[in-house]
């Protein structure tokens, strides 16, 4: 089994003695892993000096900002949640408006339902169960439905 996953630890000297010995023994007989070790060494050595310098920071200002945040006055803190607060406020207004207008809807809907029902009445009269809807309010009747024969 190759030792790819141990290469970085091997190069940094982080392996326990027994592990290091195991890896070293494997490398003696494996060209592929030996090549991986050498190539990894090149990569890590190239990265070792670190990334090109980060943009400079005014540490005095950095520390002053941090102190303000610690004291509960973060830089621009009141602007940060603004978009979320604005969205929440807008959603609340929309919801309230919707609820207010919805109070008038039942009457409108009832009128609509009655119209539709009236147009369908002749159709409903063709069903015997609809003729005796009042029976369905009686639970005893419901319980005996399977015994009611059809005529």
């Amino acid at each position: 089994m190759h030792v790819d996953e141990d290469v970085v630890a091997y190069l940094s000297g982080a392996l326990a003695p027994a592990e290091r010995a195991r890896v070293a023994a494997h490398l003696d007989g494996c060209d592929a892993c030996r090549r991986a070790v050498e190539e990894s060494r090149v990569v890590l050595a190239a990265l070792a000096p670190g990334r090109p310098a980060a943009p400079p920071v005014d540490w005095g200002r950095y520390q002053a900002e941090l102190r303000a945040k610690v004291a509960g006055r973060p830089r621009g803190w009141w602007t940060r949640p603004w978009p979320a607060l604005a969205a929440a406020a807008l959603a609340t207004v929309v919801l309230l408006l919707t609820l207010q207008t919805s109070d008038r809807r039942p009457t409108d809907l009832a009128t609509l339902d009655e119209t539709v029902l009236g147009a369908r009445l002749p159709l409903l009269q063709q069903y015997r169960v609809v003729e005796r809807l009042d029976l369905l309010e009686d639970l005893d009747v419901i319980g005996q439905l399977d015994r009611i024969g059809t005529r």
Partner: protein
Amino acid sequence: MNQEISDEMLCRRVAERDEAAFDLLVARYQGRAYRLAWSMLRDAEDARDLSQEAFLRVYRTAGSFRGDARFSTWFYRVLVNLCLDHRRRGWWRRQMVRDAIGDDPERGVLERQAAPVVDPTDTLSQERLMTQLWGAVDRLSPQQRAALLLHVQEEQSTSEIAAVLQCSEATVRVHLHRAVSALRKTIGQG
């Protein structure tokens, strides 16, 4: 205040609201914190904000630092998690940008081509190598990048990196292996 006081002792004093101790901890870690955040995020303002946020969390939760690990490990864990969360939040935005760039077949082809092998002894080649390498680091997954930066820049051990990333040492080795393998391919090796 005495510079020989350990980070762990300073942290305990921060928990007792010792402002001077906090200022000293900040002075000790501000450079490393900013550099690590910048390496992960590649944005100076985000790096400044998130490194300050990490210090703010240290100030607020210093009492929870039990001292069973090094202060640096705890601090880096806070900072790295902030950076990873920040990147996750911006992931969809970057995907859109990446998709737009990917619409350019020429650019896509160029990006997919392996870089030619460079001679490390050649100065120009060395500069090109560095540019390619760090560009490749930016394309690693967040976890792989974090593990690699902690190893290379902050010289953290595998066990320390595992504590920062809150994963097993075996997982850290996998992250480092995959990161280095990807970088080897970038410079025309492996």
